[in-house]
């Protein structure tokens, strides 16, 4: 505590804008409160004082005398009936939509402005080796457990704050247009604001527990936003699934915290970092802690085997998919590992496990992405796959590379999602005009959209080239950073010398590198496929609908343009030594004070000179990306595609991919159904009602009644029977005394 104060007092950020770090999440929180109130206000119509005697709403409002409130009520709810289905729009703006569209994005913009000011202060402060910690007040202090509400700013959290508030602002602005006619408009902005508030708590928390507040908080918002159109059971199901699967991960997070506290007596990042060596290098304990943290990451960042919630999460409005399920929340696991670099650096076993799981997830999800027809599902599996790359990076101790890919991915994947949103918006409007009920998200119903939406078309190609890893777009640099780091770790450093499940670490990492390249190839194919089917070839939307297909308004394409620029040039953030097109490794140097030591501990010191191997690696990455695109262009025939309603089912392995390897079905049959039916039939009707209640509780009552009945039979009132009983009793007593 005193240390914190002393550190804060002398800290270079002490008298800068960093003082107001608390406002970063408080601004969006205020937005949440305002928008939340707006969303409930038209609904508020005091119920009758005696709810059981008053008739039903009908009559009550008929003689309520407050016709206006009654009308507003009816309009809102009447229209929400229409607001079902995927990204469906009805034409009825919310009464307070105007206020919400100012408040929602404004608080984000203010938060972003503050973040930029803090960043300038941090950049101007020169060398900053310790985090700036601000403690607000005690949360849980009891005995030797001391947990406070405290935020910490360092280079790592700064990067995250900029991404969250920056990309968040763009997505909020996009949502003004996208959600325009949704009857739940203020509610949408309320949830989105709340999400950003929790996300900022997540990255600013100065201890694992404050981070956990954000961690679970963003999960809550994800739940609320996936199920935003809750009248459709599938959407509500998807929200619930996301929350529960995430809770499985959170279980791991909690156990890891308990282990940390039981062994180190603290959960603060700085104290954990200081005390971590006592856990013992590569000890079973530190590996266990890391793996339980990673279980949390697997839940939040949708890695094997807990990725199943993310594809379903596409049930939420598309801006949500862009912000939460691509750019920010799902990367929290990557952030957590970078944040816990000190711990992971002590356990090569855990590091390799993270990298292996990340790589397998990347490959696995990419194969599924090859055969999806829903444009958002392609992007969802692509996100899972790209998150796998990030874990490949942070797993091999290439924290800067992992974070770099996190940033560029935030740009290009947000762009892809918003672009797909713009496509869906156009498709929807077209189908809405003609009253058709075709699937607006199925690529088989699209095709040739480049004619109708040129801006979206160009921007999405930029993002596609970026994610495919074509230079000079951002994804090329960040993916190459990860792959070459994996290759370098296979050659030398702690991981290459470690053994993992009996295998030499070096061999494992070479294999991961190979699989990473294969994934890159698949990435190029499925992304090109998506672009070909959506924008190229003939249009399959329908004769009548074509007239209504058009580009989204500027409030929506504007944010896309910004993201397009960032996706294109984002690579300059962290240029490799081999490609000196500007300052080298800016991001790596920026993050050095936070993750530098852990990076060296895992990967060993990296030389500054460029080797031929490095050029070879870069060449291979570029070649494979271009090969993927060429293969897709040559092999795929958008012209031969038929609309969804005419499509024939695929067969063989294609069908397996289309059905996502049946993982959901397997989970359902092996875990969920047995658990529910076991709880119902064994625990409840069997044990609770059968054994405990019937046998013991009511059984003892029956027994008591039975004993009473026997007793009552003895009291027959017949003197003869009594005489017999006395005689036999007396004989028995006498006998007992005699033969004792």
């Amino acid at each position: 505590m005193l240390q914190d104060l002393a550190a804060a007092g002398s800290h270079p950020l002490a008298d800068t804008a960093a003082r107001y770090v608390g406002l970063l999440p408080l601004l969006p929180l205020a937005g949440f409160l305002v928008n939340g109130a707006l969303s409930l206000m038209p609904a508020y119509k005091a119920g009758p004082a005696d709810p059981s005697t008053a008739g039903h709403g009908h009559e009550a409002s008929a003689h309520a005398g407050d016709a206006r409130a009654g009308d507003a009520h009816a309009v809102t709810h009447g229209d929400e009936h229409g607001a079902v289905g995927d990204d469906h729009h009805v034409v009825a703006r919310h009464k307070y939509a105007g206020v919400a569209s100012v408040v929602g994005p404004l608080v984000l913009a203010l938060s972003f402005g503050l973040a930029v000011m803090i960043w300038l202060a941090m950049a101007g402060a020169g060398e900053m080796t310790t985090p700036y910690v601000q403690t607000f007040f005690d949360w849980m202090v009891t005995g030797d457990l001391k947990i406070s509400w405290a935020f910490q700013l360092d280079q790592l959290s700064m990067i995250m704050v900029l991404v969250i508030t920056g990309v968040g602002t763009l997505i909020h602005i996009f949502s003004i247009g996208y959600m325009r006619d949704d009857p739940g408009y203020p509610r949408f902005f309320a949830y989105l604001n709340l999400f950003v508030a929790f996300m900022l708590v997540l990255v600013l928390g100065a201890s694992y527990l404050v981070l956990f507040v954000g961690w679970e908080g963003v999960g809550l918002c994800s739940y609320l936003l996936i199920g935003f159109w809750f009248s459709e059971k599938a959407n509500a199901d998807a929200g619930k699934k996301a929350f529960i699967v995430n809770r499985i991960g959170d279980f791991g997070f909690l156990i890891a915290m308990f282990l940390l506290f039981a062994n180190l007596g603290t959960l603060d990042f700085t104290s954990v970092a200081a005390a971590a060596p006592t856990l013992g290098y590569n000890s079973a304990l530190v590996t266990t802690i890391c793996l339980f943290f990673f279980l949390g990451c697997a839940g939040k960042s949708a890695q094997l085997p807990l990725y199943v919630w993310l594809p379903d999460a596409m049930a939420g409005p598309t801006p949500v998919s862009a912000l939460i399920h691509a750019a920010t929340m799902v990367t929290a696991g990557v952030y957590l590992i970078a944040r816990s670099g000190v711990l992971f650096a002590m356990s090569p076993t855990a590091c390799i496990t993270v990298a292996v799981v990340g790589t397998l997830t990347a490959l696995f999800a990419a194969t599924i992405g090859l055969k999806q027809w829903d444009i958002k599902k392609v992007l969802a599996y692509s996100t899972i796959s790209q998150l796998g790359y990030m874990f490949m990076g942070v797993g091999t101790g290439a924290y800067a590379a992992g974070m770099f890919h996190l940033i560029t991915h935030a740009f290009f994947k947000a762009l892809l999602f918003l672009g797909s949103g713009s496509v869906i918006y156009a498709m929807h409007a077209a189908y809405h005009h003609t009253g058709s009920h075709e699937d607006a998200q199925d690529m088989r119903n699209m095709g040739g959209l480049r004619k109708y939406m040129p801006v979206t078309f160009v921007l999405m190609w930029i993002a596609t080239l970026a994610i495919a890893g074509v230079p000079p777009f951002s994804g090329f640099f960040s993916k190459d950073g990860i792959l070459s780091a994996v290759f370098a770790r296979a050659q030398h450093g702690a991981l290459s010398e470690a053994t993992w499940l009996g295998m030499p670490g070096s061999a494992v990492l070479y294999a991961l590198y190979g699989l990473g390249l294969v994934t890159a190839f698949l990435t190029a194919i499925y992304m090109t496929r998506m672009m070909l089917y959506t924008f190229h070839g003939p249009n399959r939307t329908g004769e009548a609908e074509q007239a209504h297909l058009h580009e989204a308004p500027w409030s929506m394409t504007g944010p896309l343009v910004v993201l397009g620029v960032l996706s294109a040039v984002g690579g300059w953030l962290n240029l490799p030594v081999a490609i000196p097109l500007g300052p080298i490794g800016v991001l790596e140097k920026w993050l050095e004070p936070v993750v530098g030591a852990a990076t060296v501990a895992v990967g060993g010191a990296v030389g500054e000179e460029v080797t031929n191997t490095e050029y070879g690696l870069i060449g291979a990455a570029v070649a494979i990306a271009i090969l993927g695109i060429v293969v897709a262009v040559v092999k795929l025939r958008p012209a031969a595609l038929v609309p969804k309603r005419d499509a024939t089912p695929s067969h063989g392995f294609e069908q397996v991919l289309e059905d996502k390897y049946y993982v959901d079905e397997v989970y359902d049959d092996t875990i969920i159904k047995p658990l529910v039916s076991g709880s119902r039939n064994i625990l409840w009707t069997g044990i609770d009602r059968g054994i405990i209640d019937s046998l013991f509780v009511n059984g003892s009552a029956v027994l008591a009644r039975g004993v009473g009945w026997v007793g009552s039979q003895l009291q027959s009132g017949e003197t003869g029977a009594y005489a017999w009983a006395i005689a036999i009793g007396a004989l028995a007593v006498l006998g007992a005394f005699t033969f004792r």
Partner: protein
Amino acid sequence: MQDFLVQINYNAWILPALLLIPLAGALVLLVTGSLSSDDGTLEGAPSARMVALLVFVLEFVVSMGLWWSYDPAGSRWQATYDHWWIIPWNARLSLGIDGISLMMVLLTTVIMPLAVLGSWTSIRSKVRSYYALLMVLTTGMLGVFVSRDMLLFYVMWEIMLVPMYFIIGIWGGERRIYASLKFFVYTMAGSLLMLVGILYLWNASSVGGSPATFDYDQLLTIAHTHKAALWLFGAFFLAFAVKVPMFPFHTWLPDAHVEAPTAGSVILAAIMLKMGTYGFLRFAMPLFPSAAMTPWVRTTILTLAVIGIIYGALVAMVQPDFKKLVAYSSVSHLGFVMLGIFALTLQSVQGALMVMISHGISTGALFLLIGMIYERRHTRLIEAYGGIARVVPLFSTLLVIVSLSSIGLPSTNGFVGEFLVLIGSFRTHPFFAFFATTGVIFAAAYLLWAIQRILFNALDKPENEHITDLNARELTMMGVLVAAIFWIGIYPQPILRRMEPSAALFVRTVTTGQANVRTAARGDR
């Protein structure tokens, strides 16, 4: 505030006053009208319920002084009161609170006005008797929490049963007779052995010519043989385990909860379930530390606690009746309390106390909400609803918030208690804590599934389309509880601070077996 309280000599009269105010209120209701008027309308109710509300608000306001008058540094009795009672047996009306009692008393006085508001329009017959019974019940409950005399404690313990028996049996649902009888016999059977135990202690306290006593502090100093301690612990255990309720002594709870009227369920869950865990904290463990510390006893109880957590959650998941679901969720939550108490670390015990408070607030709120929707639709079956979030947004918002607090989302009250229990238990019993932690997954599963089926999905039942949303009275009640949910979730420190010395004393007393509280109390802090 403190000065004012000293000036009015608050500490000297507050505890007897808290016991007498509800009794006086009941008396007022008795003398001002007929208790048996029963025409199924609210005729005569306005005055009775208003009297009840005033009495409980007065009780609450008066009790709030304890928050400031209680010295957080103290670990033992404050605001003590002592008066002769049954002279031949040396039983006295001796009252007092420590940090644990303090929070239980305040929980009671906060919940009771809400229970009255929750009955406001739903109780339509024998209204006078109903509110009179609520008041007598309150005296009984508060008496349990403030007694320093074990006979007085026992009397209060049994007194509470009677009003609750009638509340369930008269104003309950269809199977109210079965439920009330089960409730009464179940808990009564449990407590009779405790009476034997108390009498044994009374007898044992008379050594060397000193008169026998029921005084708790003196009984605490008696040394028992290990065998005697085990038997005595067993007698107390049964009484408290039924009340908690611990698996497998819990089956009275779902029936009682489901059949009780709203206020009955609220009081049962929020306050009366805490009697059992309070009994362990105050009596069973400090009086017989050697029994409580016996490894097989501890292991057995910890095992039952963890089974309760998981079993309660799984059984809750498959309940078709929302009230029953919440009842089984109580079994799960109280499992956390028992785990925390028997893990015997400062954090786990503090956590257990926090869960006791939080469960009172969250589950009380859940039962109130169920009561509100029941009044409108006359069914508690989950499948009778669906999609009503669109019809009753205020109700839905509140149900979501309260459910999240029950799930234990960080920054709500539910998290603080569960987290402290788990992190504390993990230090001494990682194996049990590990399995208990899976409870966080199951809690999310059963509550989210239930609220989805009630609030979300398609609005496909026409009778749900015109449910009216909450009125001002209902919003006020929920406002109080929601404020408590976030206050405790974000800034529980004032509560933790007040309980800590008493919790620490408890841990020390049980783990060291050193029962001389007077010196321990001095040495504390």
